């Protein structure tokens, strides 16, 4: 019985022994040897493993379960006759837990099914106790190994962190991410050790990135000439334009117009000012899009410009040689203008474009001084170079570094100079490159047990900034003051107020809500002609600003499910059908009571990433909600025997009818009655997050009576949407509003889900069953305070999970 497992492991006795891990290691060997490694197909686990299992538990399972969940074609892809009685691997433990929860549970998905013979109360108890004991013992064993090795595995910086760290270490602003391979995510996040492999290619690319970073930092010679010029548009055929006075040209379609006179020869930051006004727009303002820099990832912004009276706007952009500036009026479409000279429609008049750059804060730039101080690298002596290295190594490694280690780099430097292969400058550059390729730079170094102050400083800054700790954090670490609860609280507050904290919402939501996938599919231009770049830009900002607003004001976590406000600009407000003249600036907007928005589930960005470019699927959205909001990740079947639903946009087939097929097949029903309802809750929202009561269809039907830019749309109104469904617990809802209310009736599971996601994101390690108590503690304290989001961040930082490796 479970006692066997318990006898093998006396976890608490281990903690505190020296050299724990060797002991745990031998213990692990013992455990592995003591349990069957695997069970062959169809064969029962061997005798002597666990007498209780063999004599008591297996017969029960045999009697009630194996008929369906056995053999080569088990129902629901769950095979119990070969399930190893092992609770230590998360896969088998999860399955056993599922068995315990499902057997004679009260819900609709309880097992065995109602029409089948039911186990007696004693049999149920025996089964539950045995599984419970096994799980507890395994958790204790896990805790022991954690005490010895820590929960988190050592990991390297991911490429976001690598980029940000070099940015802050050197004071540079080049994007180095494209040089590195993409990182793989584990448990939904790309900062988990197990996913962060180090391959040959990484080393090759780290060398390149280090060289590029140092080249960006060590800018020498005379200050390059900056330009400051006032440019105007000139005559050209496309996009169509008309001279309205002096050098002022008006543009009448929403195609970007390149400022041809701008031909930067030096890369860097440029200040771009544009004077423009809305022309022939019946006295109304207009939105203007300005973008500059790398065409693949430009710096861009939308501005409101007044009617007939020039408005001057400003954008600072990172520009490389040969990049361009593009300006476009928003919302005029790409119409054909027959008689340009007499065209009376609205346009954007641009008076002038002023460019200034590259902008330097100082010369040599800050990056040079940060690395080399006043040193003239061309004239540097070996001693100078050595001093640079002595200063740089501890900063790069984010902790004090013993002399012996620093000396390795110094010896390297000396060697290069002594054998005549390099000048002092070259040798220093190589030594600096080596520092940036060193394991101490690339790996986050933590030792088992409570984190030391420097490791804690790094954990804190990588959590909230995805970057290295700054000087105040390192100073506190040096004074060993960081660990006190008050100081930690102060530092979390300080870090959250820093501009670098933008990385928190961006990366956390980018992964939790999947916002990084915003471009994974492009909405069909015929079905969704109103989708444009401004909408995409705006929908991406909403959840981030919303999250930041919640953090700032410590709003209730439940707001993520439903809220009476959101962060909107004009484009998004129009998309949501909310009245009110707003400009392109985002602001907090109180939502009308009949509005279906509020909370993340009904934000356009979330609705877009859970759909493809043509259709939505309640199955995909349902699975997404279960996993990310309700904390019920699916145990996915590895062999689907019913083919996936084939999408049909001919307008005659209802998704609900198609899915009915799944829900009537017993093998599918047990999962689909869980998956589909949250999906159907969102059925009123189309692939770009617009509200709908009818599906859009393409086919031989009358076109919908809608115009975009005065052109009738090409899609038709299809079947009516039927939202709403029944939850597995029997509760009904008719739409997203009622579904949100149901979720809020018990927000515990959601808050736990969010907390667990944050734990992964903050500590770089998936949440294990043994973390349960610590997570419970965090949740309890958050509940006792105010359910606030910032409170959750504080409590997480103050928890053992965060403070220990």
């Amino acid at each position, binding site marked *: 019985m479970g006692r066997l497992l318990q006898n093998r492991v006396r976890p608490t006795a281990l903690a505190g022994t020296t050299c724990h891990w060797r002991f745990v*290691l031998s213990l692990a060997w013992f455990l592995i040897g003591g349990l069957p490694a695997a069970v062959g197909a169809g064969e029962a686990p061997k005798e002597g493993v666990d007498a209780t299992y063999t004599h008591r538990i297996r017969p029960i399972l045999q009697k009630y379960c194996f008929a369906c969940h056995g053999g080569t074609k088990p129902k629901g892809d769950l095979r119990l006759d070969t399930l190893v009685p092992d609770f230590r691997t998360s896969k088998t433990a999860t399955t056993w837990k599922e068995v315990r929860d499902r057997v004679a549970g009260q819900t609709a998905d309880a097992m065995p099914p109602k029409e089948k013979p039911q186990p007696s109360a004693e049999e149920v108890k025996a089964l539950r106790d045995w599984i419970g004991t096994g799980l507890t013992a395994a958790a204790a064993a896990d805790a022991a190994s954690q005490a*010895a*090795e820590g929960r988190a*595995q*050592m*990991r*390297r910086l991911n490429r976001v962190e690598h980029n940000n760290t070099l940015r802050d270490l050197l004071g540079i602003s080049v994007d180095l991410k494209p040089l590195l*391979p*993409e990182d*793989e995510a*584990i*448990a939904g996040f790309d900062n988990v050790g197990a996913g962060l*492999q*180090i*391959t*040959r*290619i*990484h*080393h*090759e690319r780290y060398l390149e990135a280090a*060289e590029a970073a140092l080249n960006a930092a060590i800018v020498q010679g005379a200050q390059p000439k900056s330009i400051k010029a006032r440019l105007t548009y000139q005559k050209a055929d496309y996009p169509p334009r008309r001279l309205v006075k002096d050098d002022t040209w008006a543009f009448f379609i929403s195609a970007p117009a390149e400022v041809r006179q701008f031909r930067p020869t030096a890369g860097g930051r440029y200040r771009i000012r544009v004077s423009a006004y809305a022309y022939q727009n019946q006295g109304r303002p207009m939105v203007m899009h300005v973008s500059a820099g790398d065409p693949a990832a430009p710096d861009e912004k939308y501005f409101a410009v007044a009617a007939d009276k020039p408005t001057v706007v400003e954008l600072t952009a990172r520009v490389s040689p040969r990049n361009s500036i593009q300006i476009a009026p928003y919302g005029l479409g790409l119409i054909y203008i027959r008689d340009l000279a007499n065209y009376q429609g609205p346009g954007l008049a641009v008076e002038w474009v002023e460019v200034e750059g590259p902008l330097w804060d100082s010369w040599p730039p800050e990056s040079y001084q940060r690395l080399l101080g006043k040193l003239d690298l061309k004239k540097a002596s070996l001693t100078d170079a050595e001093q640079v290295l002595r200063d740089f190594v501890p900063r790069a490694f984010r902790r004090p570094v013993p002399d012996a*280690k620093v000396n*390795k*780099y110094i010896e*390297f430097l000396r060697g*290069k100079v002594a054998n005549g292969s390099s000048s002092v400058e070259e040798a220093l550059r190589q030594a600096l*490159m*080596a520092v940036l*390729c*060193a*394991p*101490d730079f*690339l*790996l986050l*170094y933590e030792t088992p047990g409570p984190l030391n102050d420097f490791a804690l400083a790094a954990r804190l800054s990588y959590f909230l900034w995805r970057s290295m700790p700054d000087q105040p954090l390192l100073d506190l670490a040096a004074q060993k003051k960081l660990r006190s609860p008050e100081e930690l609280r102060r530092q979390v507050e300080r870090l959250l107020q820093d501009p670098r904290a933008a990385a928190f919402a961006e990366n956390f939501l980018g992964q939790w809500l999947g916002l990084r996938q915003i471009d994974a*599919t*492009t*909405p*069909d*231009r015929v079905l969704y002609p109103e989708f444009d770049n401004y909408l995409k830009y705006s929908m991406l900002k909403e959840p981030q600003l919303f999250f930041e607003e919640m953090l700032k004001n410590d709003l209730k976590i439940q707001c993520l499910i439903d809220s009476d406000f959101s962060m909107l600009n004009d484009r998004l407000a129009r998309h949501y059908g909310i009245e009110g003249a707003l400009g392109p600036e985002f602001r907090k907007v109180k939502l009308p009571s009949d509005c279906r928005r509020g909370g993340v589930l009904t934000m356009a960005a979330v609705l877009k990433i*859970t759909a*493809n470019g*043509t*259709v939505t*699927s309640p199955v*995909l959205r349902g*699975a*997404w909600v279960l*996993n990310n909001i309700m904390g019920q990740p699916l145990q*996915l079947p*590895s062999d*689907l025997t019913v*083919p*996936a639903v*084939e*999408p*049909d*946009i*001919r307008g005659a087939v209802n998704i609900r009818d198609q899915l009915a097929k799944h829900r009537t097949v017993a093998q599918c029903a047990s999962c689909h009655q869980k998956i589909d309802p949250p999906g159907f809750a969102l059925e009123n929202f189309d692939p770009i997050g617009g509200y709908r009561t009818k599906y859009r269809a*393409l086919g031989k039907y009358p076109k919908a009576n809608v115009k975009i830019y005065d052109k009738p749309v090409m899609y038709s109104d299809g079947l009516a949407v039927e939202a709403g469904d029944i939850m597995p617990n029997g509760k009904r809802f008719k739409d997203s509003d009622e579904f949100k209310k149901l979720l809020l009736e018990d927000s515990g599971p959601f808050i736990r889900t969010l907390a667990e996601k944050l734990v992964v994101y903050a500590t770089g390690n998936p949440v294990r069953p043994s973390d349960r108590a610590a997570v419970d503690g965090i949740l309890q304290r958050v509940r006792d305070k105010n359910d606030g989001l910032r409170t959750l961040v504080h409590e997480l930082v103050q928890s053992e999970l965060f403070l220990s490796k």
Partner: protein
Amino acid sequence: MPKHSFTRRRFLKTAGVTLALPLLEATAPAAGVGVSALARRRMLAILYPLSFLPANFFPEQAGPDYALTRYLKFLEPFRRDFTVFSGLSHPRVAQSHYESENVFLTGCPVAGTIGAAAAYRNTVSLDQLAAAHIGSQTRFPTLNVGNLSFLPSGGRVPGMTKPSEFFAKLFLSGNEQQKQAHKRRLQNGQSILDLVGDQARDLKRGLPPRDGDKVEEYFSSLRDAEKRLSTMLEWEDRPKPKPDGPAPQDVSQRDKPFEYLRLTYDLIVLALRHDSSRLITVHAGFMGTYPIFNGSTIDYHNLSHHGKLPENLDKLSRLEDESMTAFAHLMTKLSETKEEGEPLLNRTMVLLGSNLGNSNTHETTNLPILLAGGGFKHGQHLAFSRENNTPLCNLYVSMLQRLGLEISSFGSSKGTLKGLEVAST
């Protein structure tokens, strides 16, 4: 630990790990471990990620006398030079784009379904496994266009995305000064890796085993990087081949995917002809592209979710015609280009396939697969059960053996593919 007067790199050199350069005329092959002596054999694997409409691809009849389908008609002149397969797939692969593409050349199982794949750790791809055996015979062990290739550790090999980059890699080495500078960078890289490798060794001491594994990962991959650097350095002393023409102008893959593909194919033929590499992979990358189409633009991916709409099916068929036309262009070039009097195609296995069997349903079974050239007995439709698919990896084992690797399994395979025989010469 005592200070090493003997660096690892020097150790590698003296241990004979440094790889011998191939002979200028590589008719006598360099014998590697587990590789039998063979003439130059090559592999080109191409993934079209949005599948083909099954009815236009798969012939109805099995065997040699099948009627050519709409798409196979494009390959009519090469009918005897390729085999079309049905009923092949990788078992247990989630019905998602990203993951199923990632495992196309690895056969690694991924649990899950469309849009919700479980975490997995990829395994080695066909080309990288072969590269470990025969990669040192050419300047580039593999050439990868787009992301389709994975190292033995499962780590991704980032692929090339621009034809100009591909061209530069094959042919350009700059002036003498630039060449020297490049060589120096490689040498500097070596000495830097030497230094940080020693640091890793120091760091590893005293770490718990799991963390030690991570440092070991750093350390062993560093060794691979060192080896690669030293091979690259040796190749530096041999001139790159002279280009046959000017560098290509890059075209936008997003707007002109087929032109991009054609350009890529031309470069691949050049790479094969000059023996720059014998292992090439191509991810055609159609996702999110907007092939200009009869004046209107339609996202290829959206079209692949055709929803059974007749107009969509028609448009999609025409796009797939374009895909096949580009492939036929490649086939023509490979048969026209001769090496030692033999068409390059005879020495190059060309695999064309997709990770999806049907893009509308996202099924990852019944994949459209075609193998051309490489010295196999072709000219037939090898039909396997559509209900109970045969592992695609069986075909991969046949291909790996043809490359000279003495292996009998790969991924989900249990041997070579039945019915596919080597042509008698």
